[in-house]
């Protein structure tokens, strides 16, 4: 049995037909560990590339965050002391709702054009694929929130130190929201009434992250120190990173059967 020559395939100078896989198929598939990392990197790169070419999707999430947080002073009153008091909660809740809205883009697009199917039957472990997609999704939808939030915080009259804690809490919290949300997105794939249903499933699960995150900022504002809240956030993030991809992968397989 002739093994196809691995080296030739990656040589860009050779354009001949023989370089394509007309050679004998490789039935003796040995472990290609390095291919795993390359495949995952390409997946990450692909998702980012698509998001860059469709900037409006990510921008819409960001605009929702900005607009909805502006609604609160309009609804409650713009007195500076009041705004400062409600700022951590308002900003955290609107960030959370923005994350939740963006979940629709995690798997739905891939499901529609058949790419998700291919991801499910690829040689790469689905758990890692889901993790990479969620990280890419956070970079596109969550990270901009972390960067914009301090600016909105200024509108709410928050002092500098609180702004820093706010940004840090969002930096730790929004990835956890994306991870937990990925389970909800996977469960509701292709289901009618998807957007509201995802909210119903995911919001109760979001409560701990909200409490720890907003609590960290509030505690720092009242002088109690943000350490407790931030550590709890970090722990939640770690646990989500370890467990959420498994649940989401299982949910994806169930949804795609």
């Amino acid at each position, binding site marked *: 049995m002739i093994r*196809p020559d691995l080296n030739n*395939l*990656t*040589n*860009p100078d050779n*354009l001949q*037909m023989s*370089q*394509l*896989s*007309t*050679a*004998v*198929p*490789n*039935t003796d*598939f040995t472990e*290609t560990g390095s*291919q*795993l990392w*390359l*495949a995952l990197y*390409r*997946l990450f790169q*692909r998702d980012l*590339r*698509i998001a860059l*070419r*469709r900037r409006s999707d990510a921008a819409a999430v960001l605009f929702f965050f900005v607009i909805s947080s502006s609604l609160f002073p309009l609804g409650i009153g713009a007195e500076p002391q009041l705004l400062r008091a409600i700022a951590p909660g308002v900003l955290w809740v609107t960030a959370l709702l923005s994350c939740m809205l963006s979940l629709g883009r995690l798997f739905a697009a891939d499901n529609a*054009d*058949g*790419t998700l*199917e*291919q*991801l*499910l*039957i*690829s*040689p*790469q*472990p689905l758990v890692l694929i889901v993790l990479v997609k969620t990280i890419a999704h956070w970079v596109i939808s969550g990270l901009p929130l972390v960067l914009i939030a301090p600016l909105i915080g200024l509108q709410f009259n928050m002092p500098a130190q609180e702004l820093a804690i706010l940004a840090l809490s969002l930096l730790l919290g929004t990835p956890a929201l994306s991870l937990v949300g990925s389970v909800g997105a996977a469960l509701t794939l292709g289901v009618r009434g998807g957007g509201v249903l995802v909210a119903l499933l995911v919001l109760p699960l979001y409560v701990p992250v909200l409490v720890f995150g907003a609590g960290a900022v509030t505690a720092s504002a009242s002088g109690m120190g943000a350490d407790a809240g931030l550590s709890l956030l970090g722990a939640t993030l770690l646990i989500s990173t370890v467990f959420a991809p498994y649940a989401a992968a299982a949910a994806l397989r169930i949804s*795609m*059967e």
Partner: protein
Amino acid sequence: MGNMLEAINLQCTRGERLLFKDVSFALHGGDLLHLNGANGSGKTSLLRTLCGLSRLQGGSILWRGENIQDLREDYCAQVVYIGHQAGVKDDLTTTENLCFSSALAGVPISQDQANAALSMVGLEDYVDRPARALSQGQKRRVALARLWVSRSPLWILDEPFTALDKKASALLKERIESFLAGIGMVILTTHQEIDINARSIQHVRLDA
């Protein structure tokens, strides 16, 4: 040499209807299996079950004697599945799409190799163009281009000749034939007459 792929007593129920049961077959290197049946008889369900996408509802599928549910990703590495959906991202170019599909399958290729494969399916004019500009049939051809760069020994193709013109059909037929000659295995469904030269051709018919 033992069986490479063995399906034993497969069955499928969709909703309340039993689509098929007691479907069994065995494939060796060089075999072509033609899956036949009326529309809605469960051909696509059977193919998806063979890939591991749909759950087994009865019976078992063995690859080299081992259950594919135990092999998981190792089995997936052996299979190329091209179904009804093209699996092509509109926002990427044809070349990027093919490079990604190949990297995902564990076989990274260069841009030039991707372009060479695309020209094999008659898309040389669409190289490096966004896939959004392509028709549905052309997108399917981008998917089929994977067959020229894949290393997997088993191809599962759901109506591959649909939306191909005569020239592309001939190229695909030729590719399948050389693959089979090199002891690859192909399972396919098609409405057209099977005109492919193969060492052995099996026919499985799904009847309600």
